[in-house]
């Protein structure tokens, strides 16, 4: 008995408990899966306690910045491909430790994920690998098929393929009562510019401009006619075809979920899980490929992703990477809830994502999401992304809120973007 007592004391006091702290965004649908991964990791490492700090997505990057600046307790964190460049610039992430994944080389680690996924989700920089891909998504367009039937449209035949078709279909889907819009044909978020820039970026890339690199973006500023055509395509939805009344509602994702709009364009596979929290039923919803230009490039909505990184402040980077490997080892659980993770193999060697699960859990996965994933447009991923996005949103805002002409707005955007890169 004394021996048992001594042994128990040694277990409690002899082996120091290691705490790993991970910063992640919160989403009620996915948080339980993360907790499951934490429990599995702690079961494998009884002397390790993992604390996941769940944060609203809008606050996540700022909180992570603050913790890093104050040299607080942080072992790992999640960032999007748009957020990662500034953190890379500040040298805040550690390169991948292959041994933590049970591998001999970084290449062996990279091969466990879909080819190209490290680059797309921002987990790689200048040929070196830092992050663990956690989410790979692409934006597609969404339409309410019940609304289509209500106005005499056929969901099998009348899904719009071009921007002209889209404006026409969305126009039919607008609903008014007493001259007041009670359902938009299309809407986007009228307060948060990023969602509007996502669509504008796709339009510009379809028109042949390269808005995904600093060099390409600057070069595109010398093509005012193309810029004007792209901006006009988007802003006409408000000012000309009037399929979008911004004064009616401001949040497109909530708006689509509550049938305040018949279409929207800023949802990925994960939106199925979000839709379940609103009143519109899955059976009445169909995602479809982003509209195209007849004479434009065959590119779909913006592709983006999230990666998990180990902080340079981590006292146990090897354990932290092992935790991230565990966290990214539940692609089927996430796929069942609509979140696609680009992992092919687990560190144990077994297959990661079961394509059948993805097909079953993500409606229209084979018909829409997978084909579009192969031809996504890309947003600028640079330390100047945020001021550039501001300038792009200002260009849209000037036209739809101030009544400025498209040409004048383009002229101002060109000078603002050129000034950002000076």
């Amino acid at each position: 008995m004394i021996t048992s007592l001594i042994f128990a004391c040694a277990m409690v006091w002899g082996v120091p408990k290691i705490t790993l702290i991970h910063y992640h965004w919160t989403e009620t649908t996915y948080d339980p899966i993360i907790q499951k991964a934490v429990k599995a990791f702690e079961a494998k490492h009884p002397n390790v306690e993992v604390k996941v700090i769940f944060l609203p997505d809008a606050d996540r990057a700022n909180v992570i910045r603050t913790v890093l600046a104050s040299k607080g307790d942080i072992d790992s964190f999640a960032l999007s491909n748009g957020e990662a460049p500034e953190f890379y610039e500040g040298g805040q992430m550690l390169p991948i430790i292959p041994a933590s994944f049970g591998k001999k080389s970084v290449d062996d680690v990279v091969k466990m994920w879909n080819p190209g996924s490290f680059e797309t989700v921002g987990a790689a920089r200048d040929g070196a690998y830092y992050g663990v891909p956690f989410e790979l998504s692409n934006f597609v367009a969404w339409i309410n098929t019940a609304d289509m039937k209500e106005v005499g449209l056929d969901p099998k035949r009348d899904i719009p393929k071009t921007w002209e078709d889209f404006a026409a279909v969305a126009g039919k889907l607008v609903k008014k009562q007493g001259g007041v819009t009670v359902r938009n044909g299309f809407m986007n978020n009228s307060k948060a510019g990023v969602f509007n820039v996502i669509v504008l970026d796709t339009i510009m890339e379809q028109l042949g401009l390269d808005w995904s690199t600093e060099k390409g973006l600057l070069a595109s500023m010398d093509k005012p006619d193309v810029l004007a055509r792209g901006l006009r395509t988007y802003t006409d939805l408000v000012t000309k075809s009037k399929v979008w009344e911004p004064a009616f509602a401001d949040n497109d994702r909530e708006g689509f979920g509550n049938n305040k709009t018949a279409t929207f364009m800023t949802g990925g596979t994960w939106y199925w899980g979000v839709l379940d929290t609103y009143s519109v039923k899955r059976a009445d919803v169909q995602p479809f490929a982003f509209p195209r230009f007849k004479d434009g490039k065959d590119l779909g909505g913006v592709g983006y992703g999230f990666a998990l990184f180990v902080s340079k402040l981590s006292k146990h980077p090897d354990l932290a990477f092992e935790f991230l490997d565990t966290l990214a080892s539940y692609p089927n659980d996430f796929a069942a809830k609509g979140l696609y993770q680009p992992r092919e193999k687990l560190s144990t060697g077994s297959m990661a994502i079961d394509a059948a699960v993805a097909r079953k859990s993500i409606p229209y996965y084979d018909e829409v999401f997978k084909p579009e994933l192969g031809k996504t447009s890309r947003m600028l991923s640079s330390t100047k992304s945020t001021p550039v996005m501001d300038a792009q949103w200002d260009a849209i805002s000037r036209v739809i809120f101030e009544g400025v002409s498209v040409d004048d707005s383009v002229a101002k955007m060109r000078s603002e973007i050129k000034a950002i890169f000076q």
Partner: protein
Amino acid sequence: MRASGYSVTALQRHGYVFVAPTLILFSVFLIYPMLSAFDLSLFDWNLISAKRFVGLKNFRLMLQDPMVVNSYVRTLSFCALTVIATNVLAFVFALMLQSNLAKAKNFLQSLIFLPVVLSLVAVGVVWELMFQSTGLISMAVRSIFGFSPAWLTDTRAAPYAMVIIATWKSVGFYMIMYIAGLLDIPETYYEAARIDGAGFWRQLTRITVPSLRNTFVLTIVSSIIFSFGQFAIQYVITKGGPSHSTEILALLIYRQGFELYKFGYSSALSVLFFMTLLVFSVIQLKLMRAGE
């Protein structure tokens, strides 16, 4: 007679002990951050890269930045309209509720004061819904005038929507201050005026307004300082839009720091903000001392 156990010096020392906790909290949570902001305004820093000393560059940029000019003008305009509307309404309500003709005074006072105690965020969310095209305000205006402005998506209407909300939120607070001021005026002044044949307007202009001089100074300058520092209403409802038409200075400071990660520039803007409020505070102190 027993000798006193306290000298003046001992009393002073004890006084410092009592003041010390507040002084420490004040220093840690107000003075130190303020001085840090002054220091940070001389640097370029995004929290995750090395700090870079740039001297007065942030202040030079600030003077040339059209966004700063826009924000400053928007703030002054919001401030002026809100102060005028709030103080006029508060004074009128105070006069009405102090009148002998008013019924259910306590109930009405509580009703007008109620918005003051409500959470700004909750107020913002509800008013946003009311201002939407199918919201209560838009429907009411449409039913009276036949049309309604797009309150939150028209750059000409949105600033006025913010003034309406700010006025509604704070009028009760200033009404209480005016009521306190009115209660301080001796009733004998009004009795004497009535005996001399003075009507309502003469009593108002010759007795009430002059007697409330200090109250006016306090309420007007307080409301200027408070409305100049307004942030929550614009942040919750419009985020400074549409097209920067409601982007007041406090919101610009927030955006520069927490959305564009230019903490040095944001600190420089907060120095400008501080200087402006310092001017208003000094004016208030001088006016109140002149009143004494």
